[in-house]
Every structure is written in structure tokens, then in C-alpha cells.
């Protein structure tokens, strides 16, 4: 909602002198807010008034920010930092799916999960020829925005750079180089 900024004590930003790059404070506030959301449910009964707290920039925000107050629905997406959902699309499938890459330890687990999810078979992988034996080719977009074949790089490298997955129809996929 419009006023979350104000509640987080940032309305005095304009008059405040600070060192540091612009935007860093917000990030820090956000992180600390997450910490307070996840861990600190400790209520403080004898808080000083909020007005006073707003001015106390020096005290750690985790103490002065009360979880869930004021009672407005906030965007919860930011709180789920421990889960990394990856969009998976398949050519011809009606809608996108999401998976949590952290749930898989290697390629065979991932590919099996994809096969189950979209009800198809992937085929045999070989370094030279890519995937054979099915009409589909699993690809992914890496951090640089390039589309790569799933399986070409070691698993750890893949899982840390994969941004999204696309299971392409063989007819659409470029020939293996």
C-alpha cells in the first residue's frame, strides 16, 4: 500500500543527512524488516510513541518495527527469500509452472520431475548430440540471458545461474553445436 514507506520511517529521508549510496538504506531496512518478520515476534508493551521511534534512526529497526503493524496487507513476496521459484514453460502447454530448484540435487532428479510435471519424456542426453529420442529439448536461460541446453554444464554451475526453464519442441530448437 502507498504508505508503507512512511510507516518504515522513511518519510524523514528528505531532511536527513546521511552518508552512503542512495538506495542502500532502503535495502538494509528491508533486510532488517525481514529478520524481524521471521524471527522477532517479541512484543514490546512499553514502547515509546511511534513518533519518537521514527526519529530514532540510530536504534536498530528490528526493535522499533513491529511485525504486522499497522495492519495492512503487504506484499509477501519479499519475505520468501529462502525459496527460489523458477518459471518453467513448455511449448504447447497451456500455462507456466514453477519449481524450486533447491529441491533437486542433480540433473536426473530435475529431469524426472519435469517429465512428471508435463507428462512427457525427455530422451537420452549425450554431450555430443544433446537430447535424443523425444520431441522435446530442455533449455534454460542463464544469468547472461543466453539460452543453453540443460545438462551441458556441471550441476552446481547450472543451478546457480539458471533464471528460467523452457522445454522446447525439437523443431524449434537450434541444432546442437
Amino acid at each position, binding site marked *: 500500500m502507498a504508505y508503507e514507506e512512511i510507516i518504515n520511517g522513511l*518519510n524523514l529521508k528528505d531532511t536527513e543527512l546521511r552518508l552512503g549510496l542512495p538506495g542502500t538504506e532502503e535495502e538494509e531496512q528491508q533486510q532488517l524488516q525481514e529478520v524481524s518478520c521471521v524471527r522477532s515476534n517479541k512484543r514490546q508493551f512499553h514502547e515509546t510513541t511511534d513518533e519518537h521511534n521514527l526519529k530514532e534512526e540510530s536504534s536498530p529497526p528490528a526493535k522499533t518495527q513491529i511485525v*504486522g503493524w499497522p*495492519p*495492512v496487507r503487504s506484499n*509477501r513476496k519479499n519475505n520468501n527469500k529462502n525459496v527460489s521459484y523458477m518459471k518453467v514453460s513448455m511449448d504447447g502447454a497451456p*500455462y507456466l509452472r514453477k519449481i524450486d530448484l533447491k529441491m533437486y540435487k542433480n540433473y536426473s532428479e530435475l529431469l524426472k520431475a519435469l517429465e512428471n510435471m508435463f507428462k512427457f519424456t525427455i530422451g537420452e542426453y549425450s554431450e555430443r548430440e544433446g537430447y535424443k529420442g523425444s520431441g522435446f529439448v530442455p533449455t534454460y536461460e542463464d544469468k547472461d540471458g543466453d539460452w543453453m541446453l540443460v545438462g551441458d554444464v556441471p550441476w552446481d554451475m547450472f543451478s546457480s545461474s539458471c533464471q528460467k526453464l523452457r522445454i522446447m519442441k525439437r523443431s524449434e530448437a537450434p541444432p546442437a553445436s
Partner: protein
Amino acid sequence: KANQSPLYMTQDRTEMSEDDDDQSPPSDLRSEPPCSSSSSAVDSTPNKSRNCISSSGTMTASQPFPDHVLENVLENVLQFLDSRCDRNSASLVCKSWWKVEALTRSEVFIGNCYALSPARLTQRFKRVRSLVLKGKPRFADFNLMPPDWGANFAPWVSTMAKAYPWLEKVDLKRMFVTDDDLALLAESFPGFKELILVCCEGFGTSGIALVANKCRKLKVLDLIESEVTDDEIDWISCFPEDVTSLESLAFDCVEAPINFKALEGLVGRSPFLRKLRLNRFVSLEELHRLLLGAPQLTCLGTGSFSHDNGAHQSEPEPDYAAAFRACKSVVCLSGFRELMPEYLPAIFPVCANLTSLNFSYANISPDMFKPIIHNCHKLQVFWVCILLDLCLHDSEGPVSELGLQAISEGCRNLESILYFCQRMTNAAVIAMSENCPELTVFRLCIMGRHRPDHVTGKPMDEGFGAIVKNCKKLTRLAVSGLLTDQAFRYMGEYGKLIRTLSVAFAGDSDMALRHVLEGCPRLQKLEIRDSPFGDVALRCGMHRYYNMRFVWMSACSLSKSCCKDVARAMQNLVVEVIGSDDDDDNRDYVETLYMYRSLDGPRKDAPKFVTIL
């Protein structure tokens, strides 16, 4: 008994108020009917003189009609019974009435998805066309509970897919809904007409696209305050290409750009469209174009209410006021997501007809809304949040209470208000209690915790006391500011119709909660946080908990042993203890208590952080 106001029929009512018009104790959804015709009926219904045709032997030999004919007659009569509480009463008359009522109930309301299992629903009611289902407790909205607590729609949709192929309407609140669930819904119910998702999450625009595309008879698609993942799908283009049956389309909560051209086309081929709520990716200019094409709208969410960033400055500015003036039927207005205040006067032409005005997403001050309120004589529902109340010039004085005063003077028909502010006075609240006798919902959130009346320095007891005393129709109350036990004494004494009560950072002792539990016979939903209420208070409510939908108490002073006692004494109450470090089992302190009655025992899908006592 139907409410005459047209507003009652809109989804806004569902969103804004949790009051369900249920005036009687809820029905016992036992799958076996009461075996004796008279005893249970007499216990539960006040009308003891009702003559009941029982199937257990009080009939004489000279009885003119066989059972099945009487049941047929009953079926034809009960068909017309709409009210939920009337149906609940009818079902308790006797076995035969129970059976026929179950056959003729087409709209089912389930206030807590964990009060019963989906199987119980489909076993009892065979011809359901419409389901209203509510899940998580409201305080979950404010991060007071870890995610993945439950309230999954999946078991419900899969059970209903088999049992109710003729299902037409699903209205969910605070449920976890996945794209798979929406896909199943779109495939399983060929006559599907209305999908309403309020405060839901777990799905994205891909699921919505499926519903838009496959539900060819769709009349209502309302996404209200839900979290919708952006799957980068042009879902607006997924509606069928021919004339649609759409009457209501709400997507103000969808945080993704939409294809405006497709939207314009959709609105153009939806002759029955009456309600349209746009998201913040629709600019003022685009709104203008839509309004010109759809002057028949009754309910409008304005979208951003600001310029496109790349707006053509050279063109003469559209006459926004004229566009609003042409919308003679608008009674409900919301949106203003990125409000440009200089354009606010454009809505003046519709003020006189407005029954509902939601400014809660707008960065707005009382100075801005006062002139508008002044013209809204018919207003029944008003939501606003006043951000900045700290005036630089003390001589002007703070304005929040003046804003409240203005509303109470301008809108004598006000029924429901949600007002966020930094500070308040008893005088302004008392004035509202006197000027607005029709109030059923009063939610005042003074954002500064424990804030007293800023003029007198006294607690806000008298203000809220006046509300419960003077607003005789009050069914929902949310309190804030500095409150002593006295405020709760007032609530217990005068709040006889209160069904929903929200308390935060209030009260001095157990007596406060005791006043409420002993004094408010209609209390159904009680949510309390950060207040000094403990075991003594909890025990005072034992006579009430089976007649309530739920009780939430977080960061209070409850002990685990007391909660265990309650759980032991009340077998049909599910007592959940949530959160706090679970490796520390010795700790007797309860961070969060959430308890509710259930016919099917504790749920089997509870996550690790929930302990069911």
C-alpha cells in the same frame, strides 16, 4: 430479509466486511440427521409450537398423504428459502426436513475451511451450485503467521469436481489456490459462472488465463486483494473472441501490465459489464477511453488515476469530468492507486450517487477528501488511510479527527468505515457515533500504538464506548489507541450484536477480555494481538467457544498448559499453537493461539510450525 441496498449485492461487501448476515447459531453439519424429531429441534429452535411431521411414529393411520408426497411438497417449498440461517433452522425441525433441506440447498457457506472436510460437504449436500469458502485467519495477512500454514483449495476442488459437475460459483477468501486448482476448475465445471478470489495467493496469471479461456459462461471474475504472480501471459487476450457474458471484472490487485487494446476490445464486446476494477497499469487517459465506451458501469476501480509516463502533453487534455458525468450509474468507486490530486475533482459528478468510496490505496489527506465527502450524501461505505498527520505548522493543528468529523457530518447514512490515521480524539469518535446511527462496521486504526486522545491525553475509552452504545446495529468493531479495561466493559455492556472484534495493543488485564467473552453473546470472530490477556481470561470463554468461528490470540499472556486444558475440555475444538521456537518444548509460553470448532477433528495438513494440542 434481503438487504434493499444495491451495494449488498456487490463483491465489495464481501471484501470489506466479514459479516455474513447470519443471525443465528450456525448449523451442525452432521451427516446423520437428528434421530429424534422433537428433542433436538426443541433445544435448538426457539419456536416450540412448530408442528413437525416426524417420521418416527406420531402419524396416525388416517394420514392422507404418503411420506414421499409430503417430501415433494416440502422440496417445492424449501427451494425458495434463500437465507442461510433460515435453512439452518429448517434443517433442525425433523429428519424429513433435514433431508429435504439438504437436497434443496444450492448455496453453501463455509466460514472456516477446517471446520469440516470436503467429504462431509458432498455427503450432505448433493446439489450445490455455489460455494463460499474461507481459509486463513485475517491476522495472517499481516505476517503474523509463517507462510504455508494451510487453507489449500486443492482438496475442495478435487472433491467437488466429482460431486458437483454443475457448479457455477466459487467465492474464496484467504485460501491457497494454485494454477493447477484453477485448471481443474476450468475443466470440471462446464456451466461455471463466477470466480471470486479475495485475499488469496498461490496462483498466477496463467491460471487466470485458463479460467478466462475455458469458462465460456463466465459472468464474474473478481480478483480482490490477492497475490497474483506475473507469469507474463496476456490473460486479457485469453477471453473468447465473441460476445461475453461478463458482468464483473476486477483485477486491481494484479501487479502486472495488461494489454490495454485487448481490454478495450473485451469491454466493447461485454454488453452486460457493470463492474470493472482496473489495476495501476491503466492510466488516466486509458481510463477515459474505457469510460466513454462503458457508461453503464455501476462499480469502477479507476486504476492509477495518473498520467502515463510517456503521455503526449501536446494534445488537449481529455475532459475527465465529462466522462464521469456520463457514468450515471456509478455507485461504487475505488482505485486511485497513484493518485494525481489535481484530477480528483473529475469525480465530483458521481459523488451524489456514491454509496461506496474506497480511498485506501490513495495518498490522500482530509483536505483533499473533505470537499468530496461533502457531496456524498448517500455514502454507506468509506475507506481511507491518512498517512501524514504531522503538520509542520502547529497552528493548523492535526487534521485526522477533523476528517472523521467531516465524514460523520456529511454521510449520515454511513454503515461501514475503515479509517487509518496517526492520532484521534474521543470527541470526533463520539460525534461519529451520534451522527451515524446506521453504522454496522466501525474500524478505526490509530497507527501510533497506545496513543491517547491527543487533545485531552486521556485513553480512547469514551470514544469507543460511545460507538458501541450509540450504534445499535454495530456488528463489527476494530479498536486501537490507548485503551483501558473500561473500554472493554463498555463493549461487554453495549456490544450485544458484535460478531467480529479486532483488538491490538489494548487493555490492562484479564478483566477486559472477560467483559467481552461474558457480555457479547453474538461474538463469532475474535482476533487479539499484543494485549495482556492470559489464562484466566481464556477460561472465561469456555461456554462460548463452540458457538464461535474462531479465536486468535497472539503475543498475549497465555500458557501452553492452560491451552491444553481447554483442548482437553472441548473435544470438538481444534487448538493450534503456532510459531515460536519449537525446539524449546519446555517453554510454557504461547506465542500464537488459533482455535476453532471442527466436526472432523484436527486437520492432517498442519505444517511443522503448528502444534495441535
